């Protein structure tokens, strides 16, 4: 076991890197404050690997892992989770199938065994496949005319046409209907392997116990081939405006420009820039101009999207149909101003203060810590990232932010997608 430990945030908790006897790598934050163990992990792969015409297959795979495995059918498996209050869940993202487990420490043995069965021996019983398909389709129908869903789906389709990122992760009624049991078995064999696995654990356990649990759970998974290559891609349609007609009194707006990926040296400056433009505080420019000053919307903001093969800055808001034009003008004008003038020194200083000061807020529960670490591990940012991160933010200069602005804000030439019936506005 390595002697290197990293502190979590500003806290006394330490991250231990673990190499198990069976050769698996993991990070552990041991804490017995609450008698529970939380685990987060990712298998590289995900929805970008869905076969052509079978969009949603990875999401179905994720949903089926705990619907029957090893000796247990779906109901028997779920009963074993429930009777010990073990929480187990899987989800497909664009580049990974992620999982999480939470258990009381007294039931940890049971929990790891059920997790082993779920990843190594899922059954894909015909009735379970059909039920999950029906549930997925019902979910798709339920969201079909939801303005937020319509806007987001259309946005990705316009931003990444012909690329896997342009397809919805949960698929469509048509593609989900086309997924066969054979597709799921093949996708499982191609995705759920130990070579593509990143694991983090938090809670009432120790390095030796965890190493044994992990070997038992994941050790027998196959070393599988790398995922099929996915081409790098950039957001397209910048400067165009799309309207998805929907009979609702309020239009949902999605807007996007280029971004900077998490692994890019300019990520941190872009992150600071995003905070100033539309990050999650009441002080951002868009929040102030769109909501506080004009009452145009309840929610408005931007965030950085970093996938393995693309990056973008995208934003969201919703305003009544009559004010869509005004709202878009305000957003474009703020983006353009920031792009030309940069932030003031005071604004930059305050953004850095907020981002460094608030970092610890993301580490106050075991589940949050596990997920933060899992993401850092998945992005290969290094076990010392949490320690370095605030120093990197503190070091960001005006030049850095302006460089990030030049790479992303694009003089406010955005791709805009509007779901609703905006008045006095045409597609462009």
């Amino acid at each position, binding site marked *: 076991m390595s002697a290197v430990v990293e502190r979590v*945030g500003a806290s006394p908790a330490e991250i231990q890197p673990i190499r198990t006897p069976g050769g698996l790598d993991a990070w552990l934050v041991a804490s017995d404050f609450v008698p529970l163990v939380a685990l987060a992990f990712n298998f590289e792969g995900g929805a970008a690997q869905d076969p052509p015409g079978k969009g949603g297959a990875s999401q179905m795979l994720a949903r089926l892992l705990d619907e029957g495995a090893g000796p247990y059918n779906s109901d028997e498996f779920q009963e074993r989770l429930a009777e010990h209050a073990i929480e187990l869940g899987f989800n497909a993202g664009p580049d990974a199938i992620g999982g999480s487990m939470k258990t009381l420490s007294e039931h940890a043995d049971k929990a790891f065994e059920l997790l082993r069965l779920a990843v190594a021996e899922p059954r894909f019983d015909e009735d379970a496949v059909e039920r999950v398909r029906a549930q997925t389709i019902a979910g798709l129908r339920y969201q079909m005319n939801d303005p937020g869903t319509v806007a987001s789906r259309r946005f990705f389709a316009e931003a990444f046409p012909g690329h896997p990122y342009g397809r919805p992760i949960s698929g469509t009624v048509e593609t989900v209907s086309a997924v066969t049991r054979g597709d799921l078995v093949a996708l499982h064999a191609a995705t759920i392997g130990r070579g593509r696995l990143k694991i983090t654990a938090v809670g009432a356990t120790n390095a030796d116990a965890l190493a044994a649990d992990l070997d038992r759970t994941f050790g027998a998974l196959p070393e599988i081939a790398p995922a099929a290559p996915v081409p790098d891609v950039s957001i397209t349609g910048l400067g165009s405006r799309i309207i998805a007609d929907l009979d609702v009194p309020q239009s949902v707006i999605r807007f996007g420009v280029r971004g900077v990926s998490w692994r890019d040296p300019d990520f941190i400056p872009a992150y600071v820039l995003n905070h100033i433009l539309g990050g999650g505080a009441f002080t951002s420019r868009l929040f102030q101009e769109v909501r506080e000053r004009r009452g145009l919307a309840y929610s408005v903001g931007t965030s950085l999207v970093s996938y393995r093969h693309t990056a973008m800055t995208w934003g969201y808001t919703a305003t009544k149909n009559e004010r869509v034009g005004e709202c878009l003008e305000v957003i474009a004008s703020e983006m353009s101003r920031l792009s030309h003038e940069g932030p003031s020194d005071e604004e930059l200083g*305050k953004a850095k203060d907020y981002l460094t000061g608030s970092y610890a807020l993301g580490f106050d529960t075991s589940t949050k810590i596990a997920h933060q670490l899992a993401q850092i591990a998945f992005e290969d940012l290094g076990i010392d990232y949490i320690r370095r991160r605030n120093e990197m933010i503190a070091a960001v200069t005006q030049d850095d932010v302006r460089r990030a602005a030049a790479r992303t804000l694009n003089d406010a030439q955005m791709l805009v997608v509007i779901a609703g019936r905006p008045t006095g506005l045409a597609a462009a």
Partner: protein
Amino acid sequence: MRTLDIAAGSSRHIGLRTDSAELRRSEGTGPAISTYRLDNGLDVVVIPDRRVPVVTHMVWYKNGSADDPIGQSGIAHFLEHLMFKGTEHHPVGEFSKVVSALGGQENAFTSFDYTAYFQRVAPEHLERMMTFEADRMSGLNFDDTVVAPERDVVLEERRMRVETDPSAQLSEAMAASLFVHHPYGIPIIGWMHEIETLNRTHALDYYRRFYAPDNAILVVSGDVDGAAVLKLAEATYGRNTPRGDGTLRFRPSEPEPRASRHVCVADPKVEQPTVQRLYLVPSTGTAKAKESYALEVLAEAIGGGPTSYLYRKLVLEIGRAVNAGAWYMGSAIDETRFSLYAVPAEGVSPTDLEAELDRTLDAAARDVDAVTIERAKTRLIAETIYSCDSQTSLARIYGSALALGETLDDVRLWPDRIRAVTRDDVVAALQTSLVKRRSVTGYLVKGDAR
């Protein structure tokens, strides 16, 4: 962001497993909590969790949307928004700027029975948060120019949550039908046409009636020491003047229901029908003996996830639904709602599914066995242990309980009381409470909105 607390389970996502993520109460062996009451009536609760240098600072007021004056629905929530608009001592935006510059997070939420404000900061900034929050407990003052834009924000919020979502419209219609007299039937955010008329005077009148230390609870959780917090509380909130009996709430109570009701929202945008049912049932505030605990266990046993009775019958066995479940909004002062929901399988009509739901429910008293009850109790009690992992969850659990008039013992003993629920208790709750005349059934269907 300045949100409505649409309480547990009432969100209508029809994901695969709609186990409601209600905050559960703390385990009996949980954190070492200290409590205190200031001379001006402010209750103080301190919940230490020294793992991370973070504190959660919350102030809860014992008034919510159910205390909105007639004709001013939404005023509690609108005022919550206006609480960010400045005081006599601090201009609009200053508090938020300070929170942000200190690396803190803040927000607020309004529910039927309470309104709460919170910040999360490093412990050394707690005093500053308390100073600001105590200041806006009595010194709120804003210009008329901020009122109109903020009312527009709330109108956009309502458009986002309800006006564009037929499923939310069904929820509103069902609640309005279930509560024929009590204000729980009025949406927290208010009706559109009444929000449009709310003004500065309405907000300040409401504020002066309810915002006072003797109508509030201070909860601080995280990296703090009880004695130190009490000292800070004396120095800050200790200066606020109590209001006396003026803050008491007066609520009409529901008449005994006699009519089973049906409502339907038809909208061309609906592609997936759903069936829902609400029952008028006792809450923690009105229940006699252990009724409310029995209802908690009942909801979990018949509708808490994929091993629940309804899911097994309707989804796994007969395949007439793709999802089914139940939830109980136990945390309430007055009589409250218990819900069942089911999502029909392809080709099954809402009427047929409702009939199946009723047949299943009729058999439940016989079919729900001791093993199912034990599993439900295990899950409910485990949730209380899981919630000890989050200082924010604990602050919310204690704050909301006290705001509803419960005691700290009610929170501490919750797991024991759940453990003590027997199968007979659950069956009795089912047979007494889940009866047609106490219910509203709602259909969401595709159709002409006219």
